[in-house]
């Protein structure tokens, strides 16, 4: 299926872009991240990171649907 993936901050710099549309057969959000991390040299330790689907925080165990907007969230440092 096709999804839109957004990377922020340190992940954006590491990936070299902010947003991409990708084709994936990954079974869940965690598996999708692991695929991309392996492919693009992103941090492999997922427990530092969070994930959001369609602008709501989600769990790594969640599945996703075609057309979803998925964002990978590095540790936050606002304020």
């Amino acid at each position, binding site marked *: 299926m096709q999804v839109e993936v*957004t990377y*922020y*901050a*340190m992940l*954006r*710099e590491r990936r070299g872009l902010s947003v991409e549309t990708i084709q994936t057969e990954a079974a869940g959000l965690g598996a999708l991240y692991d695929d991309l991390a392996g492919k693009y040299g992103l*941090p492999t*330790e997922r427990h*530092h*990171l*969070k994930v*959001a689907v369609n*602008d*709501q*925080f989600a769990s790594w165990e969640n599945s996703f649907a075609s057309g979803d907007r998925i*964002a990978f*969230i*590095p*540790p*936050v*440092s*606002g*304020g």
Partner: protein
Amino acid sequence: MFALSDLPLLEHSLVQSLNDPAAGALVTFEGRVRQQNQGRAVTRLEYEGAELLAANEFQSIEAEACQRFDITQLHCVHRTGMLEIGEIAVWIGVLAPHRGPAFDACRYLIDELKKRLPIWKKEYYADGDSGWINAP
């Protein structure tokens, strides 16, 4: 109400956005860019935010604050983009009938915001180095 802004925050107009005749207390918090962090000289900061996700998460924080504290209105704005030393990075204002809940809610909002909102800070140092804070 929450917003990200790529323009400098003007304290005067932010304060004016809060107005409630039932409120006897206004508490504001202003987070500013400081010139050092953990012993390193900082020359400027860059903030990046996930706007819609941040707005959604702030709604949850706001709902929690309104449930815990007797407050009537609040407003929060966080900067994005490049900031110089001394600039306002985040501004929070809380109106309440009485000062106690206004102080408590303001403290709650800034503490939860720092832990939960998808906003990232990159520091630029005097030695030419730079880095995202908390990056793994």
